[in-house]
């Protein structure tokens, strides 16, 4: 099975202290460390587990700037077979629909049985997977928490429903799935792994390589524009007092009232 995983770069929330910029419409990016979006690693792991069982290949594609080849490269250090960077001046500032349009152009020039995305970009809107599926006219399932390959070009996929319930679906290939974190345990990418793929060339494709009409992509075509960015006031912390059973009881009440347990 040939699988495409769409991954992208985000500011690493674990390794940054996020602060707003002066204009207040974005975060201060000068001192940031970037990383592959966490959920995308789960998608790559899911793809690798499928190809380890049923043969095939895993290709990781990212839409980004000229220097963003480290995203597919890191996923190749994880074990992905191919990495592709879609980069073009005209792509800058694309909204979700623009990104989906670029990815669609890439998918149509290749053959993939299955397309995976992370459930959501850490700074994103969980929209590209669904839009890409619609543009390709593929079936789509979001927040997938288990994948089982069935005979006859089908998958059985599990989805988590609000409240901890699960539903199972059958879906025809080719399809697009957005992968929930927790579906697996992504394998470790060490420095040695990264060095071993450091010299492997990553294909860089621009708009003309993709045969893409740039009118619907980029900042000009974007129809969703961020106008503000702020940190909401904190909810406040409380220190519970009393004996241990009392504390435990109170804690349970709070959790229940926030519908954390069911």
């Amino acid at each position, binding site marked *: 099975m040939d699988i495409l995983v769409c991954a992208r770069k985000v500011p*690493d929330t*674990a*390794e*940054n*202290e996020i602060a707003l910029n002066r204009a207040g419409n974005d975060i201060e990016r000068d*001192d940031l*460390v970037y*990383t592959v979006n966490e959920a995308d690693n789960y998608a790559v792991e899911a793809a690798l587990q499928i190809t380890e069982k049923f043969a095939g290949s895993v290709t990781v594609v990212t839409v980004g700037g000229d220097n963003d080849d480290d995203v597919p490269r890191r996923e190749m250090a*994880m*074990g992905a077979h191919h990495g592709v960077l879609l980069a073009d001046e005209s792509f800058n500032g694309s909204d979700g629909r623009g990104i989906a349009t670029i990815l669609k152009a890439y998918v149509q020039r290749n053959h993939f049985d299955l397309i995976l995305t992370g459930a959501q970009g850490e700074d994103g809107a969980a929209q590209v997977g669904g839009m890409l599926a619609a543009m390709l006219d593929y079936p789509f399932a979001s927040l997938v928490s288990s994948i089982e390959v069935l005979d006859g070009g089908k998958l059985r996929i599990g989805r988590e429903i609000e409240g901890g319930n699960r539903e199972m679906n059958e879906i025809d290939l080719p399809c697009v799935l957005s992968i929930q974190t927790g579906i697996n*345990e*992504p*394998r*470790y*990418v*060490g*420095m*040695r*792994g990264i*060095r*071993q793929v450091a010299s492997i060339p990553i294909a860089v494709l621009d708009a003309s390589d993709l045969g893409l009409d740039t009118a619907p992509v980029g900042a000009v075509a974007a129809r969703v524009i961020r106008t503000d960015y702020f940190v909401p006031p904190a909810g406040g912390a409380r220190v519970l007092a009393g004996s241990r059973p009392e504390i435990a009881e109170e804690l349970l009440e709070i959790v229940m009232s926030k519908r954390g347990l069911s």
Partner: protein
Amino acid sequence: MEYPSPAAANYWGIPGRTLFALLCLLGTFCFCWIIARRLKPLARAQDDPRFDRPLARLRNVLQYWLLQWRHPRYPLAGTLHLFIFAGFLVLAVRAFAMLIVGVSATFVPPGGPAYDVLRAYAATVVFAAVTAAALRRLIAKPARYQPPAGSGKGRPADAIFLLGLIGILMLADGLIESSAAAGQARSLPALSLAWLLQQAFASLSSPTLRGLYLGGYLLHALTFFFLLCYRPFGIQFHVETSLFTIYFAKLDRELLKPVRWGVPAENLDRLKSLGVKSFEDFTWKHMLDFYSCADCGRCSDQCPAYAVGRALSPRFLTTKARDYSFRHYPVLGSAANGTPLAGNLYSEEEIWSCTTCGACERECPLLIEYIDKIVDLRRGLVDDRRVPQPLQKPLKALEVRGNPYGKPERKRADWANAEVPVLNGADAHQDTLYFVDSITSYDDRIQAIGRATAGILSEAGVHFGILGAAESDSGHDVRRFGEETLFLALRDYNTQAIRRAGVRHIVTSDPHAYNGLKHDYTGLPPVEHTSQVIARAVRTGTIRFDPLANRNDVYTYHDPCYLGRHNQIFDDPRYVLDAIPGMKRVEMSRCRDRSFCCGGGGLALFHEVKEDERMGVRRVRMAAEAGANVMVTACPFCMVNLEDAIKVAGMEGQMAVIDLVELAAQQVVRQAVLPALGKGVN
């Protein structure tokens, strides 16, 4: 009357000489065959250069083999073993002489009257010792011989059988001696085993005595060769291998084994695979360790991971590998190629459960190595990208930001409130680097240790500075968690930064950084732990301490593994404590080189292992049992683990922890220019 020698006697019509010659040949052939098969995996193993420094190795043989140096650490079992071992040494000449007597009627065994007396008592002592050891296994059943929970039942029969065979050997010897003496009306050393038998045989007829003599001889020869060929099948193999295991034992215990001997760090990227993944990835010496383990259980008895119910028993780590070797390299039949070890022979949980505290290695009477094996197994897992999820984030943060918390580099010196100079290599006045390391730089609680360190160094008259944002994590525990490539990157980065600083001394309050800079790094100025610097300052009178305010407190010192066991710094911290007027100090039952690990440092803080109880909780209880209400440690990781443990154990208000530098900074009579820094103590 004089008996005919066994060589000249007839056994069921077979001339004794022929019978014993055949027995000798068969026994020797079988033994050589088995040993050749046992050596087979060693020939396929990784290289391990252990042929250097013969004098140091012979010294080890003298101390740990001949003098059995570590055995008395377990007084009863150790003493029994001492007796058996000494008896064996005395009887070795006799045993070989007896074999020759079987084939030569004219051979006169070497020795003399003195040796005859000595060996008679040696046999008696060995017999008594194996009897006592067997009874101990049958009746007292010490807990450390039991297998870990869930690993099946113990096999006391193995040990009893071996002890029984030795007993039979001694009885046979006594039988030969006593029947001959009874026949000759010769007196034997009083109260020896042979003497006792002689008394029992007093009324027997001459032909009966002759039968006993020849029968005893045959029994001796049969038992001797059976034992010889049986030993390479279990714990008793150490009789043959221990001498070699100790001779080839690791001399530089403080150095971690390189990924592969003979491959310099810069060429590691060219290796196809790192670490131990299959049995043949172990070095030949490590395989020899597996053969040599006597299953005495002291390693696991001391192991903190085993004590709190983690999935690790160092003893089983070894015996499982030995059994694996016997299964895959059988005495008869062809050697089978191994399966991956992790996930089969060892669970991943087991491999990640070790804190590398070194208690097992410190205890093993045969100097068997454990940490190198654990780290090699981890290197294999890391290379296969199998790293527990909770460790992946800190490892990536270390790669990207040089600290496991993922905090910005520019905040690395925030703890110092800009009161400690950042070294730039230009100011020769500051000749000492205070290497802070990540936890002291970033952890809110531990930053106080950093400030106390700066304060006490000033009082001690040390002209020091820090690297600030140019410092990176020492990588000490990155390396011990198997991420060699990342460690090398951190090491190279720090080495350059330290060289640029142009200092002549390095000081740190973090034993992990201390051990790393001292042993994992090369080409750095000498490294000291603050406890050494403070002890010197007290000795020279540079600093003095005010009396303790609260005279009711009872202190106990917890030896951090990487300061004590790994670097033998036991006395300096205690000396500093005892220099504080009004100090009441007690020792925990597990102290100094038997200190009980608090739960592990570095990445261990990020990795929750399945266990029944936290090591730190166990340790805090030990302090309470010793009668202390303040624990003093000298390691930031111990501080984190012990403070957590006090909360978990519900002992807040009854037990407190303070770092040695915090206590010193709190008690020091102030003279120096950095008064504010010393006030960081909570």
